[in-house]
C-alpha cells in the first residue's frame, strides 16, 4: 500500500483546515449565503445589487463581482469563463485548495485544486514556486470523448462537467486527462474512525453531520449516503463552482485567495479583468503543446 494511504491523522488535519476555511468563506463574504439566495428568489434585492461599483483602487474582487454581474445577464452560450492565476502573487497558502474542499464538501482523497510546490535553485539562491492546478476546462478536452456513457461533457458555458448519475466510475477520463485534474471518490469521510469520548471530544456529531449533509455541486443536492450512491464511486473534478456562479458568487478559490492571485471572469467581455489579463505578453497555459486549449491561464 502506498505511504499516502496510511495517514488518517493527515486526513483529520485536512478536515480541521476545511472547517476553518468554511467559516472564513462566510466571514469574508460578510453575508449569510442562504439570506442572499432568499433575497434573490423574492425579487426584491439580489446579491448583485449589494455589490458596490468598482472604482480606482478598489479590490479586484469588487471588479470581478461586477464582471460576473454583467456576464450573468448574458445567455450562457455567450459567456467564456476564464481563470487567470498570477503565479507572482501566489504565496502557497493553500487557502484556495481548502476553500474548494469546504465549498464542495470534498471527502478525503478528492481534490479539485491542489497547489504544486517546487523548490528552485540552490543555496544561497533559493526560491519556491507555487502552481495552483484547477481543472483547465479545456476547449479540446481529451477526457470527454473517452467516456463510454456521455457522463462527462462540455456544457453550454464551456465548462467540463460530470453527470454523477450517469458516471459508471470506469476512470477512463482520469487516464486521459493530461493535467491529473480528476480524482475518484472512494467513499471516505474525514470523521471516519473518530473515537467517541463523551465530554472530551466536542463536536464530533456536528462534524459528522457537516460531512454528510448535501453539498450544492451542479446546483443539485448530493448528500453523502452510506449506500455507495453518487458521488461516491464517481470521478469528480473542478467545475469553476458553477453553482456559485448561478447565485452571483465567484468561485470559492477566487474569493479565498489571500493574495488576489486567482482571477475569474468572462473573457468575451472586453472590459472584464480577465480579458485584460489574458492579453498580457507574460501569459501562458500548461502543456500548450497538447493542443487542449485550456481556459486556465497563468501570469508568470
Amino acid at each position: 500500500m502506498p505511504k499516502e494511504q496510511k495517514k488518517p491523522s493527515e486526513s483529520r488535519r485536512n478536515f480541521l483546515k476545511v472547517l476553518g476555511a468554511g467559516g472564513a468563506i462566510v466571514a469574508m463574504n460578510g453575508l449569510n449565503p442562504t439570506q442572499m439566495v432568499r433575497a434573490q428568489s423574492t425579487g426584491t434585492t439580489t446579491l448583485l445589487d449589494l455589490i458596490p461599483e468598482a472604482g480606482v483602487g478598489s479590490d479586484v474582487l469588487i471588479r470581478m463581482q461586477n464582471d460576473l454581474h454583467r456576464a450573468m445577464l448574458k445567455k450562457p452560450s455567450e459567456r467564456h469563463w476564464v481563470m487567470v492565476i498570477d503565479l507572482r502573487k501566489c504565496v502557497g497558502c493553500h487557502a484556495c485548495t481548502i476553500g474548494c474542499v469546504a465549498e464542495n464538501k470534498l471527502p478525503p482523497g478528492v481534490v479539485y485544486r491542489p497547489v504544486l510546490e517546487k523548490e528552485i535553485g540552490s543555496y544561497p539562491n533559493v526560491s519556491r514556486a507555487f502552481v495552483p492546478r484547477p481543472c483547465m476546462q479545456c476547449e479540446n478536452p481529451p477526457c470527454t470523448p473517452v467516456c463510454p456513457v456521455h457522463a462527462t461533457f462540455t456544457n453550454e458555458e464551456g465548462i467540463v462537467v460530470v453527470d454523477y448519475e450517469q458516471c459508471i466510475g470506469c476512470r477512463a477520463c482520469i487516464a486521459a486527462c493530461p493535467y491529473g485534474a480528476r480524482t475518484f471518490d472512494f467513499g471516505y469521510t474525514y470523521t471516519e474512525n473518530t473515537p467517541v469520548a463523551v465530554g472530551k471530544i466536542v463536536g464530533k456529531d456536528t462534524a459528522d453531520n457537516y460531512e454528510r449533509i448535501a453539498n450544492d455541486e451542479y446546483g443539485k443536492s448530493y448528500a453523502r449516503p452510506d449506500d455507495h450512491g453518487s458521488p461516491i464511486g464517481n470521478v469528480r473534478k473542478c467545475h469553476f463552482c458553477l453553482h456559485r456562479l448561478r447565485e452571483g458568487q465567484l468561485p470559492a478559490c477566487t474569493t479565498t485567495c489571500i493574495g488576489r492571485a486567482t482571477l475569474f471572469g468572462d473573457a468575451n467581455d472586453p472590459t472584464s479583468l480577465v480579458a485584460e489579463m489574458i492579453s498580457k505578453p507574460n501569459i501562458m497555459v500548461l502543456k500548450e503543446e497538447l493542443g487542449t486549449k485550456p481556459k486556465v491561464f497563468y501570469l508568470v
Partner: protein
Amino acid sequence: MKKGSKLRILFYALGVLTLLAGIWGFVLRFTIGEQGANYGSYIPWGLWVSMYLFFAGIAAGAYMIASLEFLFGIKLFKGTGKIALWGALVTLPIGLMTIALDLGHLERIWKVFLNPSFGSIMAQMVWGYSLFFIIILVSLWVVIRKPQAKLIKPLFIVGVLLSIFLSGGVGAFLGINASRVFWHVGLLPAQFPFFSLASGAALLLLVLGWLAPNGDENRVKQLRALGLMTIALAFIKLFFLFTDFSQSLYAEVPDNVQAVKAILFGDGWWLFWFIQIGLGTLLPIIILWIPKIGQKRYWAGAMGLLVLIGIAVARANIVVPGLLVPEFQGLSTAFQGPHLGNTYFPSLMEWLVVSGGVGIAILVFLIGAERLPLWLTKSSHVPEAEVKQ
C-alpha cells in the same frame, strides 16, 4: 484427461483453492468496495484492468487458434478447435468480470448498452466483446451440433476479424491517451493481436499437453507446431519490446524514459526480468526449440503455462508503467489523502479477486472439458467423402 490422474486432481484442487480465496475477495469487493484496492486517482488502473487485457487476449487468441481447424481447415489441428473455443468461452467472461469489478458503479453497466458513446473506445470494446461472446457461443454450438453447417466458415470469418480488431482495440484503448507517452505509440494497437495469438497458442499447449485425452495420433505434431508458433511469437514479442524500449530510451523523452526505467529497474524489476523475460519467454524458447523435450506433453504443457504467466506480467507491465509517471512532478504530494499516491502494488483484495477469476476459469474449463463433446473421438472422425457431400 484420465479420471483419477494426478494432474486432474491437482487442477481441481488448484481451482477450488483459488476460488475459495476468490470468494473472500468478492466479499471484500462488495463490502468495503474499492477502498480495499491500491489503485487510486493518479494510478487509476491496476491489476484488474491488466487481467481484463490478459483474459480477453486469451479468448481472442484461442478463437484464432480454433479457426485453424474450422476456417482454414488445417488437418493437423483437427480435433483442437472445439477445446480452443471452450477456452475462449470460459476466459472471456472472466476478463469482463475483472473489468466490471473495477467500476465504481457496476450496477450502471447497462448504460453502456442503452446510452453508449460510440466515439469512446471503451464503449466500442463493451459492445465488441459482447458480440464476440455471442459469436464464440454460437460457433461452439454449431461445430458441436451442426458440424456440416455452411454457416461455420462465414461465422469464423466474422469471429476472427472481430478477435483481431478487438485485440487491437484493447491496445487503442490505452494508446489513444495522448498525454501518456508510454502508451501513445502507433504500434501499440498493432502489437496486441500478436499478444492474443501467443496467449491462444500457449493455452492450447497447456491444454493439449496436460489435459487432453490420449489417442490422437497427431498430438505430437500438434504440440510441435504450437511450440514453433509459440517460439515465433516470442521472438515477435521480443522484437516489439526492443523497438519500444530502445526508441524510448534513445529519444530521451523524460516521461517515456521514466516509464521504461520503472519496468527495467523499478520495484517490479524482478517481474520483468525473471518472469516475463526469463521464465515466460526465454525458457519456453529453449525448451520448445529442442524437439526431444518440446514435443513431450508434460514439457509442452509446462511451457504453455509459463508463457501464459509471462504474458500476464507483460500485460501489467504495459498498463501500470504508463500510469506511474505523474502528470506533474509534485502532484502526489500537493494534497495528502487516501489513493493519491504515485506508487502501485496490488492489494490483497485485488489479488484475491483475480484468484477467484482464475479459480472459476479452471473449474468451469475442467468440467466442460470432461462433460462436453470437445475432444476428437473415433466416432467423430467424418469420412472425407461424407464431408464433401
